[in-house]
């Protein structure tokens, strides 16, 4: 049930808050409460198949270990490359899994946007009296993200202890992680799926675009320098969600934290603006169905 304290947008106009700011907060509170309730229902449904739930979580942890293993062979062969060793790569993979798990645990429903747009099932999201984005985000859960989260937290903790990180570095790291989550949300979750409003049958294309962004962060791209590094920091900021936080924790690079926050703020504003604009292009399919 929706909290009684939140002002429902469908309430009589007389009962709604009058000032712009309080209206914004009341809508945000209402949207968040609905979002949270929907997500909890989805989680309960996913956890019902206990066997599948556990195997999926463990499967994802194993999957990540395999990915880590494949690149560790790279460092085994080449040793330290441009200041990056196998240990740093372990930390980077942990960071990557942590951000992936954190973001997709809460917004994996956005990955279904192409299917909703192509089949016309987006109609049912548009008719609800709360934010389309939060509605879509909570429409699905992926239990494997728990595996990512566990894996990520374990590796990052191990790395921080291993390099004997200071409190200041950890604090800066946490800020860098927040920027990383925002950048990841924009580039892996929302931007590729907005394509669905412009290109028919774009599910695979969106997936590839997301994977490419993810790949660039998963590879030891921290070893890169020059133009490619600049591109990966600003235009397709993959480095921001994996390599940069590791650079921050091992060297207190506050300037990277500042750049990360700026880039994240820009891309978040742009992504949300584009989503709003793209949504206008959607044409209803007159789909009839029960939800």
């Amino acid at each position, binding site marked *: 049930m929706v909290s009684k304290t939140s002002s429902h947008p469908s309430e009589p106009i007389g009962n709604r808050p009058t000032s712009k700011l309080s209206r914004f907060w009341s809508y945000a509170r209402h949207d968040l409460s609905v979002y949270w309730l929907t997500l909890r229902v989805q989680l309960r449904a996913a956890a019902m*198949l206990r*066997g*599948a739930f556990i*195997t*999926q979580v*463990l*499967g*994802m942890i*194993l*999957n990540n270990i*395999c*990915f880590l*293993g*494949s*690149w560790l*062979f*790279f460092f*085994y*062969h*080449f*040793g330290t*490359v*441009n200041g990056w060793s196998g240990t740093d790569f372990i930390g980077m993979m942990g960071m990557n899994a942590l951000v992936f798990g954190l973001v997709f645990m809460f917004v994996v429903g956005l990955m279904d946007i192409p299917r909703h747009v192509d089949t016309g099932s987006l109609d049912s999201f548009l008719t609800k009296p709360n934010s389309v984005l939060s509605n879509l985000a909570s429409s699905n859960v992926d239990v*494997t993200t728990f595996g990512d989260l566990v894996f990520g937290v374990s590796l990052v903790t191990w790395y921080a202890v291993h390099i004997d990180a200071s409190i200041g570095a950890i604090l800066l790291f946490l800020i860098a992680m927040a920027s990383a989550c925002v950048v990841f949300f924009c580039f892996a979750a929302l931007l590729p799926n907005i394509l669905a409003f412009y*290109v*028919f*049958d*774009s599910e*695979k*294309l969106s997936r*590839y*675009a997301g*994977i*490419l962004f993810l*790949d*660039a962060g998963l*590879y*030891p*791209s921290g*070893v*890169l*320098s020059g133009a*490619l590094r600049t591109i990966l920091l600003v235009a397709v900021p993959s480095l921001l969600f994996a390599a940069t936080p590791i650079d921050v924790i091992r060297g207190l690079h506050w300037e990277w934290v500042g750049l990360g926050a700026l880039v994240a703020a820009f891309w978040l504003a742009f992504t949300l603006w584009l989503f709003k604009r793209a949504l206008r292009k959607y044409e209803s399919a007159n789909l009839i169905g029960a939800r």
Partner: protein
Amino acid sequence: MTASEAITKSRLHAYWKVMMMSAREDRANPLRIAGSVGLGVVRMILIAAIYKVAYELTHTTALPYENAIWSMGLYFAFIVGLSVRNVFRLIEKDVKDGNVEVSLIKPLDWRAVKICQQIGKNLLEFSVLVVAFFATLAIVVGFPDISHFSPVFIGGYLLIMLLAILSASAMFLMVGLTAFWLNDSQSVYRIVDRTIMVFGGSFVPIALLPGAVQDVLRYSPVGVYGASTQLFNPGLVKYLIPTLIASAAWSVVLLFFCQLVWRRAERRIEVNGG
């Protein structure tokens, strides 16, 4: 032509038709193909850039830089692009939707149809990917050293590729069939697929793996699939015959186990009617 020969020929023709019909799905959306191929190319450029830094700083001689990148290109074109592995998705979908019982009454083998559908679906994308990778890698990293190429080597390699498709099909059919017990075979798929990714030459060519790992891989089912990415590894010349024998042996073993799992799975099929 005898009656059995005629039946076999018509069946093969039917499987071919299934493959070509699936290939039409790809043709209907050229933008999607262009997009995924473009992204594949960018991915290769990124890997090539990372390896360039590593090669420049360490001066490794185990495998020429060009050959290393072309080997990984082959992995992404053949294993990722052709995606025989994704046959598990088609199997899993049919199991979940309850379409298996409907498919079983048809005159064509359900599993073979799924393999044909999977290969057909990615055939065009695979072909475009091969051309795009060839052009990109030729420009970005240059041509690989192919001094080890000979008619026998090429013939043996093509046979390894065919056996790799066969063993991968059997392997991933088994993965898909686990949906009969687990409901969701994604986790099993991940384990098998990622093991292939680590040891199949995705991010680190097999020739750059530690010697002991290479020795074990050569005779394992994972290595058999990965051997299909070793065209540009001069070291394969020395092990061509053992690799071929291992590929043939694992194909037989995996097909046998696939049949065994299928027999068990068949017992769990329930006809819903309606």
